[in-house]
């Protein structure tokens, strides 16, 4: 589906005419990310991150497949094959650094993509399904990244796996048998490493599948935009190609510059030195921390230090950590304000910039810090605000807030005026 004024695909060569009658792949691409997809003309640079996330996914798949050709998922040799890749495989060091930092940069762009969605309320009708699929992608990414981090079989790999699979042990009654079943043993070992490798190879393709659904769902209502006002006519849109392919191309250049600066000059900056020590079940690292992109959630996990009645603190932490992401699934129904963009929502905007953002930064910092005071107390306050923000504050402000006046249309927001439809006039697009 698309807007009625979308440019129609016309095969021009013999080959494309041949294909168009049999397998209209060029038409599909043309309508998906070509001139056949009309996009609001006022998208700012925050709308670049979807394309960048797609690029990061492909980069991870390509580098990952090459790495898998040289890696052996066996607890005896996994660490050594990783070093073999670094030292003996031609360009292996570049592949591995690109893959390890690629995971980090995938999360950088995905977090910016999610925050774009939160500020501009991209989750609201009619785009709920895009948002829900996006949260599914994020959960799959977290699982994939976690299992990938275990593969080099360093100290943080091993102890991270032990801590995270230990979370399942907090589930009442079935917890411990479940944990043993998931690991294939009482502690992470060869069985766990093998299945993590298998799943780490599989899940990116599942992600790619959900990404296709995500984009499909996007093409039904079309892209949202910074005003949050829906597209009213042809003057509100431009074709995706060449306008946004060019803009995304520039964004991709900036992304690659920063990314490659890390790959070539700071390849271990985002990692932990302990992961260059081979896994040793007999020696516990002083501070077990996950990769930086899990820090906010790790802080929420550790914030619960007291039992509540019969619920142990550990279980509360696990529930809260999962709930902190699952709550995103309900956002379209928690935030009932009819206005989408944060620009026209004065109260929402205050809570977003002065509540949610500082809270996320505190959680991020505390999650990477050792479990000592004052970090524990800080993360407890931040965790409380996090849940209040999404589950209490957002529903309340969406019913009491008085939004600022919206522009009539995207065209008016951009150009300062738009030809408004008059009574009896056919709703033809303004020019």
């Amino acid at each position, binding site marked *: 589906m698309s807007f009625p004024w979308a440019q129609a695909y016309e095969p021009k060569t013999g080959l494309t005419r041949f294909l168009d009658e049999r397998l209209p792949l060029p038409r599909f691409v043309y309508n998906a990310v070509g001139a056949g997809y009309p996009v609001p*003309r*006022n998208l*700012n640079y925050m709308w670049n991150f979807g394309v960048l996330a797609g690029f990061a996914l492909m980069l991870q798949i390509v580098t990952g497949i090459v790495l898998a050709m040289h890696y052996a998922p066996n607890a005896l040799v996994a660490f050594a094959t990783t*070093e073999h890749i*670094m*030292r003996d495989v031609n360009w292996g*060091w*570049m592949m591995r650094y690109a893959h390890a930092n690629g995971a980090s940069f995938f999360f950088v762009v995905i977090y910016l993509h999610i925050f774009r969605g939160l500020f501009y309320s991209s989750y609201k009708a009619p785009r709920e399904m895009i948002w829900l699929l996006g949260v599914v992608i994020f959960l799959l990414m977290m699982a994939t990244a976690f299992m990938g981090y275990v593969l080099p079989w360093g100290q943080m790999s091993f102890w991270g796996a032990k801590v995270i699979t230990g979370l399942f042990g907090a589930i009442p009654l079935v917890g411990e048998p479940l944990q043993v079943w998931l690991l294939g043993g009482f502690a992470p070992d060869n069985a766990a490493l093998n299945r993590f490798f298998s799943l780490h190879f599989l899940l990116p393709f599942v992600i790619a599948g959900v990404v296709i659904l995500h984009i499909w769902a996007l093409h039904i209502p079309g892209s949202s935009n910074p*005003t949050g006002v829906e597209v009213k006519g042809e003057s509100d849109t431009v074709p995706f190609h060449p*306008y946004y392919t*060019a*803009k995304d*191309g*520039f964004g*991709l*250049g*900036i992304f*690659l*510059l920063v990314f490659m*600066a890390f790959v*070539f*000059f700071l390849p*271990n900056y985002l990692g932990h*030195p*302990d992961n*260059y*020590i081979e896994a040793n079940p007999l020696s516990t690292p*002083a501070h077990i921390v996950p990769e930086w992109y899990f820090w906010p959630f790790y802080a929420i996990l550790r*914030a619960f*230090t*007291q039992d*509540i009645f019969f619920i142990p*603190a550990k279980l*509360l932490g696990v*529930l*809260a950590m999962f*709930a902190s992401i699952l*709550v995103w699934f*309900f956002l379209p*129904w*928690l935030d009932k304000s009819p206005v989408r963009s944060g*620009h026209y929502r004065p109260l929402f905007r205050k809570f977003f910039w002065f509540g949610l953002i500082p809270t996320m930064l505190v959680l991020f910092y505390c999650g990477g810090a050792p479990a*000592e*005071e*004052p970090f*524990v*107390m800080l993360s*407890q*306050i931040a*965790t*409380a*605000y996090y*849940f*209040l923000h*999404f*589950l*209490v504050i957002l*529903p309340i402000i969406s019913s009491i807030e008085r939004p600022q006046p919206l522009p009539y249309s995207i065209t008016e*927001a*951009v150009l300062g005026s738009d030809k408004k439809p008059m009574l009896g006039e056919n709703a033809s697009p303004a020019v």
Partner: protein
Amino acid sequence: MIRIIGILAGLFFALGVLWSFATGAFTAATEGFGEETAEHAFHEYPAELDLASDGVLGTWDVPQLQRGFKVYQEVCSACHGLKFVAFRDLADLEYTEAEIKAIAAQFQVPGVDPDTGEAVMRAAGPTDYIPSPYPNAVAAAAANNNAIPPDLSLITKARHDGPAYVYSLLTGYSAIPEELKEEFPDFSTPPGLYYNRYFPNLNLAMAPPLTSAGQVAYEGGSPTIEQMSEDVAAFLTWTAEPTMAKRKSIGWPVLGFLLFATILAWLAKKQIWSGIKPVRKD
């Protein structure tokens, strides 16, 4: 309905975590934040160390790596192996093939007697990896007061600020400082351990390996302990990532190309959008 359930769930988690906060705050108010430890107060972050391999233009100082390798061979290799470094890799240090063969032949590695099939020790060759002097971890622990000397291949990547850490550790031995004794009278260095302010728990199982100037004979002079420590830190930077200099030298053309491509992409974007009126900043 969803919103009512949501508000209840939100209050549950918020109040639950605030209950943890309240008990933690109560403990902190009555008992403070826990006692200061000697390890926390007297452990020092590695001292500054400048190596040729530092920075975005860093490359190897080959004579220094050779000196560092000599220190490794004569001192460190008594206890530590380099299991990810093959003798053939020493070609990076500009040793000739004959020199590498001669160096390798000084090390014994497990092998198989070609006539009888018995396990024997044989002289290493260029394709062997630099072995640990101990046959296994138990032997290593038994010979070292129960502490296993770690393999040094990756040591500078496996510690924060690794090269400086190695340098600091080698030069950081001392007697227990007087202030520490005053502040923490209970602190002691058990027999067989050595006080070192750069080691996380201050008591290190490794005896000071470099004890006197000129311990390793350099061509044309006797080096200080600091000089030998710096050289071996440089050498271990190389063993941790022999591809580092190549990585950094390739990084610049890559960034240069990307900068050029990004400028082109920006000009293309400007050109394409020039037909459209400017977008209001939102």
